[in-house]
């Protein structure tokens, strides 16, 4: 396993973004470590997300259930799914624990459904760890610019 560099982290994060926009959820699930957490907070500066209410606080089981729901055809907010196009940029390597490569970046998602186009902006924090396959996702925290304010029903993944 080789150490993670900023360029390899960027490539991984772009791949993740593309998998989500193209609804390739099985491949997306495979990016994660078994102990990883996918988090979308309602509070911007919580010390421990497990102890507060989040929009999403998913361990592996909940990620799998979430993907199953999105693909089931039984959820009217997800079928038909909104189209999304996302851009990820402003990458910066941050200090992290030993063995974890931490990247902070900006994400803009444009969503289209029915006759409406909407925008969601977020700071995203990735914890990446080396894996046999290259890189695995240990933690992803999507802090929406308006996550502590009123949102709308979201039928896809951020």
């Amino acid at each position, binding site marked *: 396993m080789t150490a993670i560099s900023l360029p390899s982290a960027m490539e991984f994060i772009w791949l993740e973004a593309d998998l989500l926009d193209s609804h390739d959820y099985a491949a997306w699930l495979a990016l994660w470590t078994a102990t990883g957490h996918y988090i979308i907070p309602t509070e911007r500066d919580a010390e421990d997300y497990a*102890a507060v*209410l989040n929009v999403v606080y998913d361990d592996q089981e909940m990620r799998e259930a979430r993907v199953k729901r999105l693909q089931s055809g039984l959820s009217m907010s997800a079928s038909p799914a909104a189209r999304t196009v996302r851009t990820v940029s402003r990458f910066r390597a941050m200090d992290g624990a030993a063995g974890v490569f931490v990247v902070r970046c900006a994400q803009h998602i444009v969503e289209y459904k029915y006759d409406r186009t909407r925008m969601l902006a977020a700071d995203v924090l990735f914890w990446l760890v080396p894996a046999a396959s290259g890189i695995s996702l240990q933690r992803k925290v999507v802090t929406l610019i308006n996550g502590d304010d009123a949102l709308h*029903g979201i039928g896809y993944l951020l």
Partner: protein
Amino acid sequence: MDQQSAYAALAREDRVHTSLYTDPAIFDAEMDRIFANTWVWVAHASELPTPNSYKMSHVGLQPVVVTRDKESQLHVLLNRCRHRAASVCEQKRGRAQMFVCRYHGWSYDMTGRLRAVPYAAGYGTELNKEDYPLVSLRVETYAGLVFATMRDDIQPLAEYLGPARAWIDLFMKQGAGFGIKVAGEHRFRFPGNWKIQLENTTDAYHFPIVHRSFLTSLDEETEGQFDVLGQGGWIEDLGNGHSVMVMIPDLVDLEANLDAPIPERFQDLAAELAKTHAPQEVRRIVRAVGGTGFNINLFPNVACSMAFFRVLRPIAVNETEIAHMALGMAGGPEAANQARLRLHEHFQGPMGFGSPDDAEGWERVQRGAAAGDDLWILLNRGLAQGSNTGDVSAETGMRAAYRMWRRMMAQ
């Protein structure tokens, strides 16, 4: 026909006219005749945990600040400086001894009293500070629910809630003896009329259809528990527009059946709690952790819904904001409170397994309501069962709410 009778004619016993969802003039009249004329929920007491704490809220379209003063008294104040109208508070919640208007610096204490005016000499004797407190609304509470009203002459809150109070008491048992605290909130908007959401809290009929993807995400035992139409549940009209819908009769009284076996999905939690709590305590907490089996719909803007508060805020005839407030046991075990947060996230909020599908359904109601010039919204399900009670899927609760709507709009 005068305006009052015209409104009354739009809400019949078994149907309401589509213009109730779409006519901006009706929306304006509702803000005036309903939201400015009754008890409107503004906060839960736990959101104002200490003296000198506050939160922003609304009464209809009007922004207010709910405060707890240094003597612990609650106040609901219009969020508007008495000088030239600037808002005095723009922090959603917090602690302060004073609201200082940032425009010309008038300052008010937590009771709303005007305390200081910069460069006061410029007013000579023209300004008597006593005459310009923040406008204060009448406030009353029941079981920690804080309501305000613009009217000094309407009945006390307890009387307005009437038989709903007994159900509120049952709802609060999910504090498992610790008491209830608000543990966070999801807020989201949908492009639709507020009454679509008001109806939904008393609509069990949609549950197995809209929430199938939620149901299939549960283990078998829990899925059985959420078979809300299949357990002999019922709906009762509680008067004044309020109603209760019982979906899981076994979870009406959380202090009963404490000896029932612990459900599979709470086994791990029970094992964790057993390290620090006596067996009977563990059973009490675990039985309360998933919330109750009923929704209380309180007209016009709040529901005590199974395990959370649902608060609606009308914004425009076709725009509504919803808050789903997660509840915890105040001072209760952290493991149980975290379990409650995860359960709330599972269904509620902008990316829950339930709420986005509800929101999509409500949006489609508003989109569909644009069609047809003289069509009606049907409320006749279960009508033959009598006017005050019905089986769980009856539209009895909606009829109760619209009966109150008619009474208030025609006054």
